[in-house]
């Protein structure tokens, strides 16, 4: 077991890799009442085509998410969600394009809850009847998200940016695609993607790292399995497929997201540095203290809902920024002016230096959320870096790196925009 002390932020990280390939990250938090555990596989909505014993297999959209729902059924007829809840834990799960994660938070009975978590995620149990029933429940969920303008505006952006990549489709799939899922599909995908070498366990709380490792070694399969090779389709071009996608829905004012794709840096330290650089770039360009945001807010073109995000999945980074505006076209054209100005004249040094301080403070704040901390550690494991290194890497990033990123990745021709307009 490796122990790393991060003096600057007063955190200690215990990392263990079991003989079966499972990575365990534990951040010990004395004095805290709650413990948080997240058990994740590097398998998400985008992992639809993969190599199995030399053969390429295609699966319908929505399997990873469907599997997440069904994993809570246990062979003895219980529902793991209910078992954890009955023991005082607050359990939940999510599926993104690149990850499926099961987690709980509890203030008592941590090791019992951890045992339940490790057991139910590693033992699949599906029947044709239970799969059919779930098709109804997930069908409802799909309908609900299709009514959600925030989801529609996001998915239309992905379809505008990418020509082929599976991240163009909803993680939940469609009513039609999930109808093709059988209990066999689920067993196959569980066997391939839920093997320990493709998984990570992250824990934060007042816990004993040795005891956690011992429990994981006892419960989980002994064989490592292999990390499956995936295919996200032919490489995407640098420009969007379509620059505008607009639809009408029951909303009060236009909702918009614009964005661009980023060619992912090599896994490990370069990828962490790229993520932090992009974050600084977005903060400088359109954060709360940026001239762009202040001006557009004062003009009534943006409000407090405006925000930005960066997501890595399907082999690409996707930059997204959006909110509500009476005139999204004006917003994107004003941003393009800012980008040109940065490309021509560089970034203001004073702005850059205070943005770095603010980014440090934001990261410090995120350590207070065990959920965010564990999720970041899990993402880091799948991407080959340690998220707690971010605090010192952040210090090393230069103003010219950020300027170059802005000029190369956010120029007008790289951007696509999706808008949901009101019906009336």
């Amino acid at each position, binding site marked *: 077991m490796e122990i790393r002390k991060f003096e600057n932020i007063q955190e200690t990280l215990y990392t263990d890799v079991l003989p079966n390939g499972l990575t365990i990250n534990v951040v010990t938090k004395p004095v*805290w009442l*709650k413990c948080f555990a997240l058990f994740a596989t590097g398998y998400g909505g985008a992992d639809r085509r993969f190599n199995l014993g030399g053969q390429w297999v295609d699966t319908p959209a929505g399997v990873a998410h469907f599997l997440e729902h069904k994993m809570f059924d246990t062979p003895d007829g219980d529902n793991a969600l209910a078992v954890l*809840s009955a023991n005082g834990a607050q359990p939940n799960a999510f599926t993104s394009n690149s990850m499926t994660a099961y987690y709980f*938070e509890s203030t008592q009975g941590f090791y019992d809850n951890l045992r339940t978590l490790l057991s139910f995620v590693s033992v699949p149990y599906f029947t044709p009847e239970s799969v059919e029933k779930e098709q109804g429940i997930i069908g409802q969920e799909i309908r609900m998200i299709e009514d959600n303008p925030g989801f529609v505006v996001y998915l239309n952006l992905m379809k505008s940016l990418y020509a082929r990549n599976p991240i163009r489709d909803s993680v939940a799939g469609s009513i039609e695609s999930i109808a093709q899922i059988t209990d066999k599909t689920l067993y196959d995908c569980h066997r391939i993607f839920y093997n320990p070498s493709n998984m990570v366990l992250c824990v934060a709380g007042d816990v004993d790292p040795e005891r956690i490792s011992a429990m994981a070694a006892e419960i989980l399969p002994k064989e490592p399995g292999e990390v499956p090779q995936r295919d996200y389709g032919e490489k995407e071009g640098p420009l969007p497929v379509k620059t505008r996608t607009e639809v009408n829905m029951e909303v*009060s004012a236009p909702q918009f997201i614009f964005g661009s794709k980023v060619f992912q840096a090599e896994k490990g330290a370069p990828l962490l540095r790229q993520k932090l650089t992009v974050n600084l770039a977005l903060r400088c360009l359109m954060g709360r203290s940026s001239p762009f945001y202040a001006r557009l*807010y004062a003009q*009534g073109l943006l409000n407090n809902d405006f925000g930005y995000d960066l997501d890595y999945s399907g082999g690409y980074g996707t930059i997204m920024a959006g909110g509500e505006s009476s005139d999204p076209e004006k917003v994107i054209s004003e941003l393009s002016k800012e980008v040109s100005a940065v490309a021509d004249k560089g970034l203001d040094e004073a702005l850059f230096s205070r943005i770095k301080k603010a980014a440090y*403070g934001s990261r410090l*704040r995120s350590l207070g959320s065990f959920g965010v901390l564990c999720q970041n550690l899990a993402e880091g494991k799948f991407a080959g870096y340690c998220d707690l290194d971010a605090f010192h890497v952040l210090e090393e990033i230069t103003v010219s790196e950020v300027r170059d990123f802005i000029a190369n990745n956010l120029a007008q021709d790289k951007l696509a925009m999706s808008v949901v307009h009101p019906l009336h």
Partner: protein
Amino acid sequence: MEAIRKKIMPFVELTCLRTDKFKTGCLSVNLLTRLSRENASKNALIPHVLRRGSTGHPDMESISAALDELYGARIEPVVRKKGEVQAVGFFADFADDAFVPGGEQVLEKVTALMGELLLSPNTRGGLFLPAYVDSEREKLLERLRARINDKRSYAVQRLFELMCFSEDYATDRMGTEEEAQSINYQKLTRHYKQLLQCAPIEVFYCGGADPLRVERAVKSALVTLLRGEPDEDIGTDIRINTVEENPRYFTEELSITQGKLSVGFRLGECMYNPNMAAIRVFNAVYGGSVTSKLFMNVREKLSLCYYANSAIDRHKGLMVVSSGIEFDKYDAALSEIFAQLEAVKKGDITDDELAAARKAVATELRSAMDSSGALEDFWLAQNVDGLYYGPEELAALAESITRDEVVEVAKGVECDAVYFLRGLSEEGEKANGD
């Protein structure tokens, strides 16, 4: 982690929680006022206008730059509704001194900036800048109109508007479009001055600093605050009985594919002398947790809906059940929601259900102790109600609640109104025919 409460100025109370647990501390200042249809929008608008500029930091860009320098500290307007009390002000969170390179004293600087925003706005001739008021009024209107975007909360809001039509509670925390539209910079400045004089103020701090240091910082930041006569008319009117003998039914239509059902209840007699721990456990048994009767039966066993849960407003003595259903499942879902409540009333609660509900309540309360934001909201609610026990005490009480105590709460609960948001008639029929 004991809460220390102290009156530091005329009707200004400071609640301090000292802990080294967090890397970021939080500080909030809340002006309390009666929630009313006449003034809610003005009150809600004030912190947003103040956040636009002060004498020392005349625009948002300069405020944001100052906050960046304080290691990304945040000072954000907050507008909350606690029963029929509206609380408006600012919430700040910021890096604790121990984690700031160079050991800068962030607390004093953030508190001073918050005081400046609250008390020294950027004005002309003593009046708010019309440009700031106009643009924030438009944003408030946008937020009010945007409530329809989230159909789930919209259906709950519409239920309360209809169910409590003659009570202040019907008013949203942001007020109404009608009132918001009538606001101008002169009217708002007058209202602001009156609010500053009359509103009781609750200040809350949680973090690593000594309470005396916090008190000094807050007093120094509020030194120019002039106090008048306190507004005594603050509190929540609790209605014990339903408005009519039988539930009132409301249906509205929007272009949506999934129906939203909201069912409103009065908690009834338990509100004469509320046992908050029992009320919370009752809610967890009935619909407030994933082991609840609504979750296990309406969602899991009968697959009648995608979600179904209940929530309590303990200030007002209300409960709402919120559910997402296919349009044609309306009758089945509603009768199951009522049937599960009847089961609780009859004491048809298994030992496992009761134990899980107690644990869920205790866990939620104890988890709040690990979040400065959750502690802040908990203590604001306690202070508004004049209750002075902390989350740990309430969690311990919840763990000893008996079946009889849960049934005692349930017995008084009566449905007052049912609201259903469905698709437009022709689309609805099409969806039902699928």
